[in-house]
């Protein structure tokens, strides 16, 4: 493969220095994810998958090794550059939805758009995305607290997509939903993958992992098998 991988980890190590002694969260981890892949990162709790997700999501930087996201080495990036990377290249979908409580559903989706474009959305993109994920205009006027879990996660997916990111990063996206709603969300993510998006799901739920094209299993901060 000659194309630049969308995510590339080479000997990535992450050590958390604690008073009780250093904790090795990632141990010389090497992973490559290409554009358009649907990857599930799985592993038991404490395996390091959340740490890995934070590195890929540009929320944290490795202690050593090379981590390239869309070809850029994030260890060499400033805080503002990392923030811009999160704004432009990564769409986050969290287990707890993480919508901004002060804003309506519509505004939650529009928020990253405004941060990026420095103006309100006049193209209708926000409305279209909300419509695509099944949130109607009336619901879009509600604050997150007034929406069900499934509806909140739909809004979160629309928000993740609003700046057309290279990577969709999902952290246990169905973890807080009932089975039926969870299945609907998974369908939605699968559909997005089929549209050509790179989707990475971190989960410990095998039924979620099974829907991915590839599973990366992490144990003790190392890749078990790829």
């Amino acid at each position: 493969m000659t194309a630049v991988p969308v995510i590339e980890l080479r000997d990535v190590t992450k050590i958390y220095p604690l008073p009780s002694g250093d904790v090795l969260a990632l141990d010389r981890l090497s992973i490559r994810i290409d554009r358009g892949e649907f990857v599930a990162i799985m592993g038991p709790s404490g395996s390091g998958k959340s740490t890995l997700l934070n590195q890929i999501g540009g929320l944290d930087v490795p202690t050593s090794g090379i981590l390239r996201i869309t070809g850029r080495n994030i260890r060499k990036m400033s805080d503002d550059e990392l923030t811009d990377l999160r704004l432009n290249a990564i769409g986050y979908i969290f287990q707890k939805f993480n919508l901004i409580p002060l804003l309506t559903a519509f505004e939650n989706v529009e928020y990253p758009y405004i941060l990026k474009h420095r103006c309100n959305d006049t193209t209708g993109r926000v409305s279209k995305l909300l419509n695509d994920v099944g949130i109607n205009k009336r619901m879009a006027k509600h604050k997150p607290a007034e929406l069900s879990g499934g509806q909140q996660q739909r809004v979160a997916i629309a928000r993740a997509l609003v700046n057309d990111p290279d990577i969709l990063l999902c952290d246990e996206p169905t973890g807080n939903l009932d089975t039926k709603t969870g299945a609907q969300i998974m369908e939605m993510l699968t559909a997005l993958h089929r549209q050509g998006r790179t989707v990475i799901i971190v989960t410990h739920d095998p039924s979620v992992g099974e829907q991915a094209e590839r599973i990366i299993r992490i144990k003790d901060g190392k890749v078990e098998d790829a």
Partner: protein
Amino acid sequence: MTKDIILQLSIRSIRLNFLRSLLAALGIVIGVVAISSMGMMGANMTLSVTEELSAMANVLVVKANAGGGGGGMIMGPGGGSSSRSSSSSDDEYISKDQLDDIERAVGQYGLVYPLYQDSETIEVGDEEGRATIYGLRDEDMATVLTVEEGALPKTTSSVVVGPSFAERHGLTIGTRITIGDEDDDEAVVQKVRVVGILEEKGMSMDMNTDNAIVMPEKTFVGLFGGESEYDQVNVILKDINDADTATEAIEDQLNRKEDEVTVQDSSRMMESITSTVSTLTTFVMAIAGISLLVAATSIFNVMMMSVTERIREIGILRSIGTRKNEVLRMFIYEAVILGLVGAAIGAIMSLILGWLVVLAMVGTTKYFFTFQSLIYVPMAMLIGIAICIFSGVYPAWRAANLDPIEALRSD
């Protein structure tokens, strides 16, 4: 949503915690009101005192320097005899030439008039007593004196008297006064008639006419002798700010070779009084400033609570692409809004309460709407807003520098 989504978030956060924010802003309101009304009170007091004092403080009193060994100033012979000419030496009085020099030096700054002064035994009816007697040139009478009743003296046998003097001796228009000791054969005695009673003048630096007899120069010289040997020369300044310049001009003109005259600048006294008032004002304002410190603590507390309550939200904002400086701005905006609202309400209340305080403490609101007084309103507002921002900086900085991962984890 407006373009500045960060500002929008701040406004919404304040609205969401309206009561808490209002209470924090109330601290600023109280601080602004306290500082500005105290400041206004001080300014009004200073202006009022300045005006009251400047009526008498715009006077330079020039007296002859008693020269070498003698020292001190001549306050009039005081002996009571008419021995003025015989005992006088040139340097005890201000001569006509010196008066001309003074007029040349400071005539442009105001009115220059010379004054004779003495003290003499008087007799009204059967009652004897002593009186201060002033002698004024005819041309100065009309400008320097204000007659309450009667008229100014036109003949050498008529005088005017001060109101306190008139009351004490039961003088009315037409009453005769004998000046000089009739028992003393050598003394000059003159009978004069009261033709006018002067308006009450109060405390004054140039001459205290309230308790004196004022007569024309000719009458005075007739009684005491010593023509053109003035006891003092008064300069009534048009502008009190010229006091220093005028004093210097007189000294340059007359004291070049030796100290011929001394100049008493009565504005100095006023300066020390106004400076005392302003020191007191500053002190009272500093006490009022303590209320702003309390307000600062309250704002700081509210901001810290806001940050703590919104840690997770800050984590979300950071994880989806909000920069550190944007988070910082969000909380600074919040502090600025609290400050602006508090300061604005404070400004309105300052005008009302300040007016009442000035009315109660100074007794007049004549100077309330002057620049010197009202300047304390924007000044207190600025201090209030600055304190809000200052109190908001640390919480905002803390919010901006939260680790997004840690922040996302918090519940």
